[in-house]
């Protein structure tokens, strides 16, 4: 076996491990966070502070029967949960955690991550279509229109960042911001005065892309029971669940890399990777905070927000940045 192959295998295993561990323990974080916001303790039974809850949950899910309802489209039904988890894991491969901790750096890293991110909505579509359930179908229709509506402003914002940096390599994008925190793209008012707005748009879009509250219309349980995963049991459901959390980590990583200076630290106290993780988990905490604070929007409210507000603003920002780059 050649050395590169071992490298790749190691990278893939590490990516899977990181994704799975994060997905499992974010569930714990989410439940503890929810408990914190709701003035209750959250999980406490298994292990100290309920820390053994995720493995116990996993065992419970795995020992349950995988029910395939009669009349479902079996191929779609089985493929969908895998498709929910797989793109998230693949995206980890190219994310740089610090100068040298990156599984496999690519010069088109941004493109690759967004290509895989688009596959995520595929899984919702297949799950909804294959389930033979009206609630699931309605949910998947919602999910698809939602991801179309939010990928556009998200990608336009990313193009703005790529234009400023002049590279699609995530590593180069970060290195461009490492001089100091005033160099972070979110504060880079000299490059484009609307950069903080771009950051906000990107953050809102990543909330919507990961189907998180207040944009969790795909699984709006007061309307659509459980949305696209209504018919899933056992690890079928478990994969959707873990995929959701893996996507949150990806969203937070991307926001950190594109806007918050990646591993760059404001005052070099700790090694870069710790700063990266700190920023990522702060963003994830914000995700959790938002989920347990706001009620859900409606599908038309969500589409209006994207098409009437976010897309025009991000387009304007793109033109402005392009103009400024041309002039200066």
């Amino acid at each position, binding site marked *: 076996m050649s050395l590169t192959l071992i490298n790749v295998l190691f990278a893939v295993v590490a990516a899977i491990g990181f994704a799975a561990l994060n997905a499992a323990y974010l569930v714990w974080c989410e439940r503890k966070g*929810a408990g914190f*916001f*709701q*003035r*209750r303790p959250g999980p406490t039974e298994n292990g100290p502070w309920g820390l053994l809850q995720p493995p116990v949950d996993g065992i419970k899910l795995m020992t349950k029967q995988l029910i395939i309802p009669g009349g479902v489209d079996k191929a779609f039904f089985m493929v969908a949960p895998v498709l929910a988890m797989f793109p998230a894991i693949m995206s980890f491969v190219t994310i740089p955690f610090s100068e040298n901790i990156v599984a496999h750096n690519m010069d088109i890293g941004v493109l690759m991550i967004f290509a895989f991110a688009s596959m995520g909505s595929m899984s919702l579509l297949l799950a909804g279509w294959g389930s033979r359930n*009206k*609630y699931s179908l*309605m949910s998947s229709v919602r999910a698809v229109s939602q991801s179309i509506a939010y990928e556009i402003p998200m990608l336009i914002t990313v193009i703005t960042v790529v234009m400023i940096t002049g590279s699609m390599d995530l590593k180069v994008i970060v290195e461009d911001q490492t001089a100091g925190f005033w160099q972070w793209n979110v504060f880079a008012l000299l490059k484009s005065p609307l950069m903080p707005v771009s950051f906000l748009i990107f953050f809102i879009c990543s909330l919507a892309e990961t189907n998180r*509250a*207040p944009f*969790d*219309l795909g699984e*709006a*349980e*007061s*309307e659509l*029971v459980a949305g696209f995963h209504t018919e899933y049991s056992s690890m079928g459901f478990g994969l959707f669940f873990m995929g959701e959390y893996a996507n949150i980590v990806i969203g937070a990583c991307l926001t950190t890399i594109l806007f918050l200076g990646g591993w760059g630290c404001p005052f070099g106290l700790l090694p870069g990777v710790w700063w990266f993780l700190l920023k990522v988990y702060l963003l994830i905490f914000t995700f959790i905070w938002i989920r*347990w*604070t*706001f*009620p*859900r*929007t*409606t*599908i*038309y*409210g969500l589409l209006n927000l994207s098409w009437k507000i976010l897309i025009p603003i991000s387009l304007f920002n793109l033109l402005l940045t392009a103009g400024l780059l041309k002039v200066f």
Partner: protein
Amino acid sequence: MSAPIQLRSDETFTLNVGPQHPATHGVLRVKMEMDGEYIYKAETVLGYIHRMHEKMGENRTYAQFLPNLGRLDYLSAMAYNHGYVLAVERACGIEVPERAEYIRVLTVELNRISSHLVWFGAFIMDLGGFTPLMYAFDDREAILDILEGVTGARLTYCYHRFGGVYNDIDDDFIEGTKAFIPRMRKALKVYENLVTKNIILMKRLKEIGPVSAEMCRRYGATGPVARGSGINYDVRKNEPYSVYNEFDYDIPVYHECDSYARYMVRMDEMEQSLRIIEQALAKLPEGPIMPAKKPKIIKPPVGDYYQAVEAARGSFGIRIVSNGDKNAYRMKLRSPTYSNMHLFDEACRGMLIADALAFMGSLDLVIPEMDR
């Protein structure tokens, strides 16, 4: 928000919401004809939890039927107790000591707040916000503890008796209630700042779920649903019973006719109930809690009797037809949510399903009370 659209009846599908569905809060079933996400029509199917309470009222003695009243609307059981004992007292001509009436009003109003708190939490949960439920239940817990101390029950109370109440309130009750009033006022302020003024909530409730005053009249809707449509009708003011005339309180009325108006009515009602409780505690007279002489066996004279009270969800009426026997000849319970529910079909046509279910939440349905 939802623009008027032309619905085409030939391209619809049936969506079965319930009897097991998170939004119906019980075993209500709504058969929805849908055109995409728009509702073409919605047929309410009742009867999944029908327990023949009215028939039970006819083959039991009056005293034996008393515990059933706590099982109709389990969230505001006290008002139903109150309505029934008032109806029987009216039929038999039993005099109630003043202290007992004050205690009844105290418990009913406390129960009204706890009922509205459950609605508040569950309604926001229908809209996808989970956290307010926990806060509301925390405050409700205080009420349940207070009422448990004096009635022995936490949910299905059977506290009122013909002629008075089961036992006298103690110092714990009075102290607990006095401590609860400022706590609840503070909590209401928190709810207002965190929930009522939330922009997503406003967008989801304002101008959604129009229920006109005319519609309320046709369907017989009462309570917060009618008061959110500009109808100033509250049994406590319009057909005064018990000692409600002796308190100074307002009936919140909103004219917007939308879900937000109904929401605001209930939030304001909690404050008004606190005012009543405050005054009742201050004015609470000394004296017996049961009349000195009271018939051993309740046998109302031949006749037809009706008594309405303002329960948390609207006007609850009891009609007793007596032929002089120890059982009622006919017992008719008029439950408010039964009437309130039926305007859902007419009002939700052309609405998106998300809005319709938010609208259903704003009607505050308790299914066991609807089916009886």
